[in-house]
């Protein structure tokens, strides 16, 4: 089961993690990407993510398909949020399940690394005295 969601609303982390896992899975690994209160020494007030929705969905699907081709996953859920996101809130939640843990760990790491490399979403950090677009990997 592959689930890919792009949404503006807060991510229901509990729901995402509950979605992952079948009775033959021994492992569910999840990654929550959170908005940090600092970046390169500056205090961050909030973030805004801009997204090229149609293409982002296609690219996330490709990343998940690649992960399925490389590891024997049973379920995988990727939810990426866009728009304004506050400190401590989740910008992305990934959960994958597999019979054995090694595969689930590798798959989730691969998915977050690859999402950050190629999914068309851009982050803008807001500070007390302005904002800046972040280009490329952090």
């Amino acid at each position, binding site marked *: 089961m592959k689930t890919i969601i792009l949404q503006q609303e807060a991510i229901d982390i509990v729901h995402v993690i509950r979605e992952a896992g079948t009775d033959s899975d021994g492992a569910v690994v999840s990654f929550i990407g959170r908005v940090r209160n600092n970046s390169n020494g500056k205090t961050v007030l909030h973030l805004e993510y801009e997204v*090229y929705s149609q*293409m982002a969905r296609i690219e996330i699907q490709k990343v998940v398909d690649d992960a399925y081709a490389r590891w024997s996953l049973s379920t995988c859920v990727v939810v990426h949020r866009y728009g304004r996101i506050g400190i401590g809130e989740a*910008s992305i939640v990934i959960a994958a399940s597999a019979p054995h843990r090694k595969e689930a760990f590798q798959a989730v790491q691969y998915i977050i690394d690859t999402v*950050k490399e190629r999914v*068309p979403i851009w982050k803008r950090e807001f500070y007390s005295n302005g904002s800046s*677009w972040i280009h*490329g*990997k952090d």
Partner: protein
Amino acid sequence: MKIRIKTFATIREACGFEEKELIVSEGISVKEVVQQLKKSYRQLNDLDGALLFAINEEYCHDDAALSDDDTLAIFPPVSGG
């Protein structure tokens, strides 16, 4: 022929539009479209860092040729996750 340009993030701000239709010559390349845009939107010249391109939601190189009714997206390196 007619193509649609979409811009995002810093490119959107430099161009001042999110989406625009453009009449271009048959078989024009991505690179040529960008050169053409740089004349009208001078701030595009100031953007450091690589530009990325996608035709119809698929990444492409700047030597890719466009067809009628294509959508060309132009954007800076991504920073999602």
